[in-house]
């Protein structure tokens, strides 16, 4: 029997960019029970999508659910509505969507990796990762016109075409970005200090991942082969060289490596897409109103994103339901902390890359 101490973590904490609150009951550094509060950023977006906004506007509203995976949210919604209305999207638009979606994944994964490095006390690597992330941000700005909220995809296509100049610059700078990402991957894979800090910490086993329905990089790091890019054809991933990254450790080190390998794969896919970009329109006109229901699974940077859309021939939809990846990962986080040292908590939380704006909506 040791001394019992209650340790609150959050809602405002230096390791967290967003408000989430954990209350840990500890007994001599070992955690005995956890309570979690995720509702700090609940705004009521689902309600507003069903009452305030027309179905053509909702795509831009759901982008504001989360700034990091804004294109994934838009893609999920737009794909769902296109399937409802039977819209045939031009191939060039699909390729452009894929380019933006994968570049978004690059910058989101680099952010998560840099953040884990900072929490491990490796500020140098944090700064370096963020410097390289800026390249991805610049490319996105070049392509879409904005750094964070792209508003790129729309029902029936995309809002902005790719000019030959931009394509040329993109190709040149992607080489540079790839080299840098390979360097980052190398550091995260081989650095002695990082291995010492992260190996064997916060392990999610394969059984646990299956039991708690874990999604995204944490699941793939645990050896569970699940990726919506392979399981749902919303964009032409398979013809552009998509590779499923799976590792078997399940600890913080492996989660970061999954991200690092996915970054490289994403850059390769973007290169392939730019190489074989089809000619043609980027947008088709859409007629009619959505009727019926459809569901879509999209792979956001953090994992599986699920959209349920129901309409009944009106401008305003009946129901928009968003199930985000972090929301699915909260139960396993809660389970994982029991029996862990308190000192490992910040690194573990950040290695799941929690996105609370998504979770609470």
């Amino acid at each position, binding site marked *: 029997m040791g001394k019992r101490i209650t340790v609150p973590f959050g809602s405002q904490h230096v390791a967290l960019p967003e408000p989430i609150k954990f209350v840990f009951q500890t007994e001599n550094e070992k955690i005995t029970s956890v309570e979690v509060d995720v*509702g700090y950023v609940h705004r009521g977006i689902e309600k507003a999508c069903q009452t305030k906004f027309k179905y053509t506007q909702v795509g831009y509203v759901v982008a504001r659910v989360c700034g990091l995976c804004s294109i994934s949210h838009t893609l999920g919604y737009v794909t769902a509505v296109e399937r409802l209305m039977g819209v045939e999207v031009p191939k060039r638009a699909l390729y452009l969507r894929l380019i933006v979606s994968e570049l978004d994944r690059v910058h989101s994964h680099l952010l998560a990796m840099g953040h884990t490095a900072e929490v491990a006390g490796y500020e140098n690597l944090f700064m370096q990762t963020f410097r390289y992330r800026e390249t991805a941000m610049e490319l996105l700005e070049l392509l879409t016109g904005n750094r964070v909220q792209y508003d790129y995809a729309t029902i029936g296509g995309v809002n902005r075409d790719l000019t030959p100049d931009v394509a040329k610059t993109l190709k040149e700078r992607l080489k540079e970005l790839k080299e840098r990402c390979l360097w980052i991957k190398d550091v995260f894979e081989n650095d002695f200090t990082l291995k010492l800090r992260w190996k064997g910490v916060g392990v999610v086993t394969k059984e646990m991942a299956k039991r708690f*329905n874990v999604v995204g990089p944490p699941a793939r790091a645990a050896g569970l*082969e699940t990726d919506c890019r392979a399981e749902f054809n919303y964009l032409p991933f398979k013809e552009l060289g998509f590779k499923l990254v799976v590792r078997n450790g399940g600890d913080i080190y492996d989660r970061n490596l999954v991200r690092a390998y996915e970054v490289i794969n994403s850059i390769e896919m973007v290169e392939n897409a730019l190489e074989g970009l089809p000619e043609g329109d980027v947008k088709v006109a859409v007629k009619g109103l959505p009727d019926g229901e459809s569901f879509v*699974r999209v792979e956001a940077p953090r994992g599986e994103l699920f959209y349920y859309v129901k309409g009944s021939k009106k401008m305003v939809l009946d129901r928009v339901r968003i199930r985000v990846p972090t929301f699915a990962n909260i139960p396993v986080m809660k389970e994982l902390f029991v029996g862990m040292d308190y000192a490992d908590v910040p690194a573990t939380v950040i290695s799941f890359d929690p996105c609370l704006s998504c979770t609470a909506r």
Partner: protein
Amino acid sequence: MKVEEIKVPLRDVRRTVKEFYNENEWHFITVNAVDLGGKVELKWFFTRYGEDEYFRVVVAQASYDEEIPTLTYLIPSAWISEWELADLFGLNVEGAKTGLFLEPDSPRAPLRRG
């Protein structure tokens, strides 16, 4: 897209899910409710690992006051979706607490129509 819909009465939901659910094969996505005015339509979404565009949906209807059975005995991660239902729809889910998202001064059951 392949969708397999299973319509069951509310009290049989847990038995139906138990018959096919196996954690090595099935992935539980979420539980969703749609307001039909006076009652709600509940949908439990499942998919198979590694299968292309496949959903299995368990559908049931419930009135606002009826007790909705929980699936946490079979799927331990289901609690968070069920608490969300209890909070945002004001439904009576077995074992759920309110206050996941809403504050004391927020409107009650905001996702109901009307």
